[in-house]
């Protein structure tokens, strides 16, 4: 058996081929579900596994599935493969190398919520991946693993790919649904949430690619097996996308409970040029930035413990910053990104990011006056808590935490390293 749950291609060559995948018991779980389990039973197993969404928010997956409005049909399933957060590149590897496990996950999820139509929403840049997936879906249909009356039952399932066209906001699930409906990708008001009002106004489950890819092995090996892989707080394994100033950037699948130290120094080979590590962004550009103290480096990677440190595990996109980098540059980069990606629907995000971008550029280009920095801090604080969706809220995290936690980079009094 592979030592991996998700990145199984790393020790099972060609698992992307249907034959190889089936030799590894591929699609047995789906068949078992469709032929011998009630839809509710599948959801119960996923609930019991403790699996939480890997797209960022970490919402319990089984619980989400159980929220589907049973009085409103049809139901839809949407896999979120928009993957556009700076620092995140795990879903791409999963789809490229282990596509069948992902598709089986989508299929099982669809069966669990009674959906007969599922979409995979990929960022537009992934069009080759979409064609690749289309080919795989085609093969599965030919093999009788997708399509009408599966395994001789009443259940039918179609899966289609759908391409975005360059908009980070479409990763936000309601913006994604709008986009899939052929509209501008702007977030909807929530509530109602997709399980009661989703695609075409119908109950819809939206899950991340990695979330789905966990499902087949959970079904095969049981909820308990999965729980045991992780910790009490965070069940199972997680793919961390490691990037930035490390020697070996890439995706690493680790059980929850591992540490940043293991991820960065063992797997990632340490810091480029053996420089000193300075900061960690646990969740891509949206992160509340952590000062890389020993305490932080040795904290077990779990949803709760990272939150305790004053950040979030998010989608596990770990960006490493070393001593050669100044934080005022980092936030100039992140704000550039958010300014570019703000959908413009709500005022604070639209105007605030423009303003912050102006200020971060000015500050980075040398005008590090206390007045400018205070204004930047004010503007960021004024945005906070007032946006329609999380993008706007994300945008200020880096700014506020950089100024708070790395004052020396902004010409302010440094704080003692013990406080970091």
């Amino acid at each position, binding site marked *: 058996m592979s030592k991996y749950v998700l990145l199984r291609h790393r020790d099972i060559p060609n698992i992307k081929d249907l034959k190889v995948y089936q030799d590894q018991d591929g699609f047995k779980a789906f068949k078992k579900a469709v032929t011998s389990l009630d839809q509710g039973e599948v959801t119960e197993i996923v609930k019991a596994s403790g699996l939480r969404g890997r797209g960022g928010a970490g919402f319990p997956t089984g619980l989400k599935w159980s929220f589907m409005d049973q009085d409103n049909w049809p139901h839809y399933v949407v896999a979120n493969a928009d993957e556009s957060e700076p620092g995140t590149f795990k879903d791409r590897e999963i789809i490229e190398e282990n596509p069948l496990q992902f598709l089986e996950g989508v299929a099982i999820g669809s069966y669990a919520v009674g959906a007969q139509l599922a979409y995979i929403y990929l960022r537009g840049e992934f069009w*080759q991946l979409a064609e690749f997936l289309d080919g795989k879906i085609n093969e599965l249909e030919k093999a009788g693993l997708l399509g009408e009356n599966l395994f001789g039952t009443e259940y039918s399932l179609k899966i289609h790919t759908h391409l975005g066209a*360059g908009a980070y906001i479409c990763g936000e699930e309601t913006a994604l649904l709008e986009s899939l409906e052929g509209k501008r990708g702007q977030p909807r008001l929530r509530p109602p949430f997709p399980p009661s009002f989703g695609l075409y106004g119908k109950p819809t489950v939206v899950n991340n690619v990695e979330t789905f890819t966990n499902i087949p092995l959970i079904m095969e090996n049981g909820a308990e097996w999965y729980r045991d892989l992780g910790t009490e707080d965070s069940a199972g394994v997680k793919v961390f996308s490691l990037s930035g100033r490390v020697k070996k950037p890439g995706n690493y699948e680790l059980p929850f409970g591992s540490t940043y130290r293991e991820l960065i120094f063992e797997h990632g080979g340490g810091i480029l040029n053996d420089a000193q590590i300075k900061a960690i962004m646990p969740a891509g550009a949206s992160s509340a930035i952590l000062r890389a103290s020993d305490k932080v480096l040795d904290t077990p990677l779990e949803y709760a413990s990272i939150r305790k440190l004053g950040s979030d595990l998010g989608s596990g996109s770990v960006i490493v910053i070393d001593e050669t980098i100044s934080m005022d540059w980092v936030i100039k980069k992140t704000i550039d*990104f958010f300014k570019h990606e703000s959908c413009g629907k709500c005022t604070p995000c639209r105007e605030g990011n423009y303003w912050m971008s102006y200020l971060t550029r000015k500050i980075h280009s040398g005008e590090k006056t206390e007045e400018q920095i205070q204004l930047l801090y004010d503007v960021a604080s004024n945005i906070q808590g007032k946006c329609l969706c999380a993008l706007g809220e994300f945008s200020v995290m880096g700014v506020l935490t950089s100024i708070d936690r790395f004052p020396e980079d902004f010409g302010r009094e440094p704080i003692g390293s013990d406080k970091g």
Partner: protein
Amino acid sequence: MNDLLSKYPEEIKTILAKYPSEQKRSAVMPLLFLAQRKEGYIREQALSEISQILDIQETEVATLVGFYTLFHDGKTGIYHIQVCTDLCCALRGSEDFLTGLCEALEIKPGETSQDGMVTVEEVKCLAACDKAPMFQVQGKDGISYHENCNVDNTLEMIQEWRESGAAEQEETK
């Protein structure tokens, strides 16, 4: 006359088949990609052709062209090199790569080379942060990723495009 329909009848059928029949509007983005396939940008006429196919207003089609960055409403270079200079790539030298490439091509970021062959631009994160410097090329064959690049191997690639472009021109003559 609906050019799009007559040029791509099969493709359009396949696209429409993906969505519930009363939700045809979902096909608008795939159709825009189709309209953009040949020339790399969307002509105004295509807006009305798509609006006819989907029974929606041209304005409802146009608004998407404006919103999504992969749709272009004007002509660009034949090859559109978009270098990711977002945070993670920049941490691994992509900004220097961009500067080097532009210097070699004697253009500034955002400009098109003199022969109209390449436009070089910056782009936001492309989900390839571990393979910087990297860029995507938007050209007539869609989008392709090029990872772990340096200025030399990129210039070589451009040279190849130029040669094959010249050959193609020769052929059409």
